């Protein structure tokens, strides 16, 4: 029995340190700057343990019962700490308050454990032996925890599951104590029921934790998330890492603020330079306002219509300070009209014509995106484009997804467009492809904007050259009733990612 009690000291010590490590790791994950996070978490945790130790003096009766209850509470709160923090993060504004509050609560309860255990055992050991034994097991537990955590637990079991697992150990210790002291305790049944309830909840958490992580999804992003929202259409996530802001839609990178100028300049400016005096521009997709920002650099463009499916996107990029800085308040321009609608049905029902059209859709990874690269859609675009106008289209990577790229090219040609394929290197994306579609053979008719960082007449000339590993290959034409582009895209990108 004595051995069992000392083993309990070992287990509770291990658990206590694990919670601390979970909190520290999570805070580094979510907030970045691991030195600060670990340092403050350890400080707060140890200080809270001190409070717990101090508070232990106020418990004078039913010590065993109190110990068991404390173990239940640590099991539940400590065990679910990781999951709760994960889930809370995207939803609350003052995450740090919640973080330190939870860490303090767990710390206080953990601080209660050892003093309570010492007092429970005081009649069973000589004092010097008691202190020596309990503290020895306590520190061994700490060593075991600190080695197991990075080497086995996080890589093999995962952060959140580890929490639930050790929560269950705490509850197990409580149930063990219940068994050992059942003769000295009242209300054994109610304690037992509580214990089994806690254990079931933790086991359930353990097995559902994959769902929880995928829901919280934070672990997918190496940088800290500064905004995230699920809209009916997609999951929008914006991350920040040393001034590098990144936008993810459904976990797919849309831009990195470090190099998006390369992408957006390459997308917009060559097409505009090929149109004599563009007046009315249309942007389809591109709710981040970056393409609009580039268009606004041209004085002659008087009116821009932006059609993006998701009102949350355009709202986000016209209201959040950091993002407004990125698109230079493009979405607030008086020249701009924002329409939140499905691009296909909007274009079909709208009869206006445009001198410049920019297609800045996400890659055609599913049917609802692929329909925006079909003959049917391009036919409507052909009708809406003024005779001297040009359409600029982002067309995924011709290096990774060569068939997909040339499939878009072939589809454009099949409805009568002349096409000008070109490509540019965008570090966060890799080698990226674009196509200009026009009624007449396309040529540059006026100088590029002077204040660009990447695209110039000279650099554009080189973008038109396709090396052998991404040159044109025979492909099918993408239609509403075959969506061959989705198949090309899926197979090419899945090969690439493996």
């Amino acid at each position, binding site marked *: 029995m004595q051995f069992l009690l000392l083993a309990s000291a070992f287990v509770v010590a291990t658990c206590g340190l694990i919670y601390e490590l979970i909190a520290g790791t999570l805070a580094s994950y979510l907030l970045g700057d691991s030195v600060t996070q670990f340092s403050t978490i350890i400080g707060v945790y140890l200080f809270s343990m001190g409070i717990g130790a101090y508070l232990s003096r106020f418990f004078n009766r039913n010590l065993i019962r109190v110990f068991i209850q404390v173990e239940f509470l640590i099991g539940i709160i400590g065990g679910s700490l990781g999951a709760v923090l994960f889930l809370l993060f995207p939803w609350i504004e003052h995450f740090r308050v919640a973080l330190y509050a939870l860490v303090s609560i767990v710390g206080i309860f953990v601080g209660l454990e050892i003093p309570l255990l010492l007092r429970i055992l005081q009649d069973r050991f000589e004092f010097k032996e008691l202190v020596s034994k309990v503290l020895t097991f306590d520190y061994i537990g700490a060593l075991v925890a600190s080695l197991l955590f990075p080497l086995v637990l996080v890589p093999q079991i995962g952060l959140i599951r580890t929490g639930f697992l050790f929560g269950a150990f705490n509850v197990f210790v409580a149930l063990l104590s219940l068994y050992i002291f059942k003769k000295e305790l009242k209300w054994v049944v109610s304690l037992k029921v509580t214990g089994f309830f806690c254990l079931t909840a933790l086991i359930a958490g353990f097995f559902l934790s994959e769902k929880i992580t995928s829901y919280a999804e934070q672990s997918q992003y190496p940088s800290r998330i500064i905004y995230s929202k699920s809209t009916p259409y997609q999951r929008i996530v914006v991350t920040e890492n040393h001034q590098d802001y990144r936008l993810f839609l459904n976990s797919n990178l849309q831009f990195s603020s470090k190099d998006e100028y390369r992408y957006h300049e390459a997308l917009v400016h060559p097409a505009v330079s090929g149109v004599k005096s563009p007046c009315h521009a249309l942007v389809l997709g591109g709710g981040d306002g970056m393409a609009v920002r580039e268009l606004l650099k041209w004085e002659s463009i008087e009116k821009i219509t932006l059609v993006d499916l998701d009102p949350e996107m355009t709202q986000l990029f016209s209201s959040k300070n950091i993002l407004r800085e990125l698109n230079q308040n493009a979405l607030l321009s008086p020249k701009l009209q924002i329409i939140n609608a499905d691009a296909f049905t909007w274009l079909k029902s709208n009869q206006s014509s445009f001198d410049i059209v920019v297609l800045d859709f996400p890659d055609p990874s599913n049917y609802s995106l692929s329909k925006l690269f079909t003959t049917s859609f391009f036919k409507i675009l052909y009708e809406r484009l003024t005779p001297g106008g040009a359409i600029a289209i982002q067309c995924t990577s011709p290096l990774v997804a060569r068939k997909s790229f040339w499939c878009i090219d072939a589809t454009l040609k099949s409805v009568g467009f002349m096409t000008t394929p070109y490509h540019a290197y965008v570090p966060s994306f890799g080698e990226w492809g674009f196509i200009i579609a026009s009624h007449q053979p396309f040529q540059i008719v006026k100088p590029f904007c002077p204040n660009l960082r990447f695209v110039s007449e000279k650099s554009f000339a080189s973008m038109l050259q396709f090396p052998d590993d991404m040159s044109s290959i025979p492909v099918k034409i993408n239609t*509403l009733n*075959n969506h061959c582009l989705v198949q090309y895209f899926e197979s090419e990108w899945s090969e690439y990612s493996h």
Partner: protein
Amino acid sequence: MKLGAAGMASSAWGGCFSSPKPIPGKILGASVKVGHLLRSGSFPIPEEIGEKSVVIVGGGIAGLSAGWKLQKAGFTDFTLLELENEVGGNSQSGGNDYSAYPWGAHYLPIPNPESAYVRELLEDLHLIEGYDSNHLPIYDEYSLCHPPQDRLFIHGRWQDGIEPKSSLSAEDKLQFERFWKIVDRFKKAKGSDGKRAFAIPLVLSSRDQRFLALDKMSAAQFLSAEQLNSKYLIWYLNYCCKDDYGATIETVSAWAAIHYFASRIGVGANAGPQSVLTWPEGNGHLVEALRAKISPHIHTGSLVYSIDSQPDFSHVDFFDLATQRSFRIRAQNVIFAAPRFIAQQTIPKLPRIQGGKYSPWMIANITLKQLPAEIMDSFSWDNVIYESESLGYVVATHQRLDRLLRGTVLTYYCPLVDPDISKSRKMLLERTHEEWVDLILKDLQRPHPSIRQYIENIDLWRWGHGMIIPTPGYIWGETQQDRLRTFQKIHFAHSDMSGISIFEEAQYHGVQAAESILRNLKTTHHTQNAYEFPI
């Protein structure tokens, strides 16, 4: 399979905390009352309302197609009488806030080169936009079924396509191969008369006894003679026969079953042999296009209860359900475009011929509120469940182009295939809404355990005489010539005449009747009145 896991969790919760509310909905269908009214024969004395060159009885595809052809020829002196409040027959459709949906036929396969009338109609409706350099029709892309077209729920998971592919033994696979080889042979086969063995419309098929002999046996007999007995193959062929004929391989003739597979050779410039044309409202789309062309001629709610046929004209008596009055039209010609068994009841002088059998059908339109995106995105157009009593469901919003943020409608098809048809029909009529809903749920919960919580409404349509069954001997038997024969001035136009209930057959007979009347009128039109040809 995401629905599976999510569903299990939610149904477990559902089971713990609430007993489910009953699912609301109505039972619709051809008014049984009106049918009985027809049989009882007590109608007011008809008021004479003059003369028509042509009266079309019945506004299904055959009747509408006859009207389309007359109207196209510049001929206007005709009236179409339809019993129901809406035209369309088996191609009727409905709709709610979420979508239009079919109440019967829901697609048209790419027509064969010989299906000239179908192509002509599709050209008129701009569903064929032109022809490419190989003379292949270019179809309207919006109407061609978008992928994913169909899938099968088998052994706990979905597979692409309806032909079973998973867990097949080598022998099963071999049998499928052999079956498709047989089909391929029949596809290419021509008779001694030089005609294709299996054509659409089927009157263009070869009369070579080699092929017609297949009409004397059941599909099941044919398969056992060919030693085809793989349970997956048999299931698949049963599914196909139920889908097109509302009956199993034991009931359907081998000729009809092979026709299903071997007749279709149509392709387009932008459409393969498996392509179909479809719309949210199914063939209701074609019905509406036809209706719009001849709408001034259509009188709905008109029950034709007696046609007194004379050598030179007919008296068509009908009961107007709205005013509860009877009227008589003196018709120089009648196109009788309702089922044959109704003709026998309505035209007393018509010589009796052995009638066909009709399969009862239940069709349900299941309205679902907004579904999780991963379920929505996983739907194919046609979704079939292996070894189910039903034929599965089609998704009405499949062809929509905008991202769907509202609910959808599933159209669920269930022919009642008991060999004892009167028993099936009785079951169809006796089952309550609640009983049907239970059966549908049981079926759909196999692939979609959580579906119940998304269902807002289930409406049912009972088709007592859903479609003619091509039983052995029906298509090419003794009555074949009798069914086609004009009786005095009454022309018949219905897919019953062919013995298979498909759009192409109904349309063919409707157009044929109209053309034959137009020919007669042309030769005698100086003595007639009330119409002019444009030329």
